C-alpha cells in the first residue's frame, strides 16, 4: 500500500508539469521521459518480472503505431478507436509470439533471438505491403483537435501519455501484489520448481507477454499521434527494441520505479551527449550501447539496486535483476 501511495505521489508531482512548465521544449522533455518510461515498463513486465528477455519489442510497438495510422489514413477511422485497436492488435501479436515460443519451451537466448526475428519479419512485411506505405512510410494528416487525438498544445499530449503511463505503472504495482505476479516471479526464478508447486508457467508467461505487448502497443499509438509519421525502420526497427530493454536495465529490472529512473537517467545522458558532443547520426546509440555494456558489467541491478544498496533495504519490489541463479 505504501508503494501505491508513493506511486500516486510521484505521478501527482509529474502531473504538475503542465501547470508549472511554460516552455514547450521542457514539457516535450517530460513527455518523452514518460513515453520512455512506458516503453521500458512494458518490457519490464515480461523481462524484469517474467525473466523473458525480448529483443523484439518493436513488434508490439510498431503494430500499435501502424494500426492507428493505417486505420486513420486508409479507412478514416478515428484515432481514439485506433488507440483501442492498436492496443488490441499489439496484444494479438504478443499472443501469437508468446504462444509459438512458450508452447515450445524456448527460453533465454533462444527466446531473445526468436522475438527479434519476429520483429524483423514484421519490418520487412511493412516494408513490402502497400497499405502501410511500404518503404516510403505513412504520414498521418495534421488535423488538430482532441477528437482526433492530436492537440494544438503539448498539454493535451502530456495528459494522454501521463494517463497511459500511469496505467502501466499501476498494472505493475498490481503485479507486485497479486497471485499472478507471485507466480510470474516464481517462473522467472525457477520454472521447474514453480511448476512443481502448481504454477501454470505457460499461462502465466502468456499473461505477461500480452500485458507487455499491450503497453508497448499503446506507446506505439502515442508515438504515431505525436510525430504523425511512421516508416518500417521507426516502427519495427531495432532502436525501439533496444530502448525498451535499456530503460529498465538502467533503472532496475523487476522493480516498480526502475523504468521511471531509467527513463530519466537515459534522458539526462542523451541531453548531456547532445550538449557536449553535438548532434551526429548514431552518436546517441553509441552512448546507449556503452551504457548497456557498463550496466551489465558493473551494475546488473540498475539504479534501483544502487539505491537499495545505499539505503541497505529493499527498494520497490525485490530486484532480482541479472544476477540470477542458473541451477
Amino acid at each position: 500500500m505504501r508503494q501505491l501511495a508513493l506511486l500516486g505521489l510521484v505521478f501527482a508531482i509529474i502531473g504538475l508539469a503542465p501547470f508549472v512548465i511554460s516552455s514547450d521544449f521542457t514539457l516535450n522533455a517530460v513527455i518523452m521521459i514518460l513515453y520512455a518510461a512506458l516503453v521500458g515498463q512494458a518490457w519490464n513486465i515480461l523481462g524484469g518480472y517474467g525473466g523473458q528477455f525480448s529483443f523484439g519489442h518493436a513488434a508490439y510497438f510498431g503494430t500499435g503505431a501502424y494500426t492507428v495510422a493505417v486505420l486513420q489514413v486508409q479507412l478514416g477511422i478515428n484515432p481514439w478507436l485506433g488507440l483501442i485497436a492498436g492496443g488490441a492488435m499489439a496484444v494479438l501479436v504478443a499472443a501469437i509470439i508468446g504462444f509459438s515460443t512458450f508452447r515450445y519451451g524456448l527460453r533465454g537466448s533462444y527466446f531473445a533471438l526468436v522475438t527479434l526475428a519476429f520483429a524483423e519479419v514484421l519490418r520487412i512485411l511493412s516494408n513490402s505491403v502497400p497499405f502501410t506505405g511500404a518503404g516510403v512510410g505513412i504520414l498521418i494528416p495534421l488535423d488538430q483537435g482532441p477528437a482526433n487525438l492530436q492537440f494544438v498544445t503539448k498539454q493535451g499530449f502530456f495528459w494522454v501519455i501521463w494517463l497511459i503511463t500511469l496505467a502501466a505503472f499501476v498494472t505493475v504495482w498490481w503485479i507486485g501484489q497479486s497471485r499472478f505476479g507471485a507466480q510470474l516471479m516464481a517462473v522467472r526464478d525457477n520454472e521447474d520448481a514453480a511448476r512443481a508447486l502448481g504454477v501454470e508457467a505457460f499461462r502465466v508467461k502468456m499473461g505477461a507477454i500480452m500485458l507487455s505487448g499491450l503497453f508497448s502497443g499503446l506507446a506505439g499509438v502515442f508515438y504515431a499521434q505525436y510525430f504523425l509519421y511512421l516508416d518500417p525502420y521507426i516502427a519495427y526497427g531495432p532502436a525501439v527494441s533496444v530502448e525498451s530493454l535499456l530503460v529498465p536495465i538502467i533503472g532496475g529490472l523487476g522493480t516498480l520505479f526502475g523504468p521511471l529512473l531509467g527513463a530519466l537517467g537515459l534522458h539526462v545522458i542523451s541531453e548531456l551527449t547532445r550538449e557536449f558532443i553535438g548532434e551526429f547520426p548514431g552518436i546517441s546509440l553509441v552512448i546507449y550501447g556503452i551504457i548497456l555494456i557498463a550496466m551489465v558489467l558493473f551494475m546488473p541491478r540498475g539504479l534501483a539496486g544502487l539505491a537499495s544498496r545505499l539505503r541497505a533495504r529493499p527498494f520497490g519490489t525485490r530486484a532480482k535483476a541479472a544476477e540470477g541463479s542458473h541451477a
Partner: protein
Amino acid sequence: MPDLAIIIPSVLNGLTTGALYALVALGLTLIYGVLHIINFAHGALLMVGLYAVYFLNVQLGIDPYVALFIVPPLMFALGYALQRGIIGKASHGRDENILLVTLGLSIVIENLSLFVFKSDTRAIDTPYSFEVVEFLGAFLPLPKVIAFAGALVTAALLWLLMSRTDLGKAIRALAKEPKGAKLVGINAEHVFAMSFGLGIACLGVAACLLLPSYYVSPQVGHGFVLIAFTIVVLGGMGSFVGALIGGLIIGVVEALGGLFLGESLGQIGIFLIFILVLISRPTGLLGHKV
C-alpha cells in the same frame, strides 16, 4: 513459372552467396559450441573486417586476397581482446547478460562507424571485379567463385585445427567438460578467448573474400547477423558441417525467394525458416555436436 535457364543460375548464385554466409556462420558456431554464448556483435565485427580490407586497398593498394594474410590475424587479436576484456566478465551467471553485452557491442561498433564513415556505401575496384566464369550455362562472377572455394578451404583448415592441434584439443575439452578441463590445467580464460578470436578471424577471412564482389557500409553486418544465426540454428548449434550445409541452404533459399517473391519478401523466407527451426528443432537439423 521461370524455366531452368533462370533457376539454375539463381541456385548457383545462391550457393556462392551461401558459402560466404557459411563462413560467417562458422565463426558464430565455433563461438557458440565452445563458449555457449551467442555473439550478437558478429555482424558488426564482420563490418569492421570489411572496413579494414577496404582501407588497406584504398590507402595502401593492398589486394583483398593479399589482405588475407593481414586482416584475419588482426581480427583474431580483436576477438581475443574483446572476450578477455569485456564479454567474458559479463555473465553473472546468466546467458542473457552475455547476449545483452554483445548487443551493446554491436550497437556501439555499428553507430561509431556510422559516425566516422557516414552511411555511405563503399566498394573497391579490382581488375577481376567483373570477371565471370561460365558454369552450367550460368555466368558467375569470378570473386564469388573464389569466395566459394575460399570458404570451403577455410572450413577444412578450421576442422584440421580443431582435430589435429593441441589448441583444438584444449578447445574441445573445454567445450565438453569445462570443469574437467580446468582441473587438468587448461587455462580456461585463455582458451575461451582463443576460440572467440578464431571465430572472429573467420570473419576476417569472410571480409577479404566478400569485398571484391560486395560493398561495405556501417549497416552491412546487420543483414548478416540473423542470417548467420539462422544458419547456426539450422545446422545445429556448434556443428561445423551443419554450418556449411545450412549456409548453402540459406543462400539458395534467399536466391530463389528473391526470384519468386521479390528481393524484400524473399528475405522473410529466411526469418520464417529461422523461427520454424527454433520452435520445432532447437537442436538443429543435424543435432548437437562440436
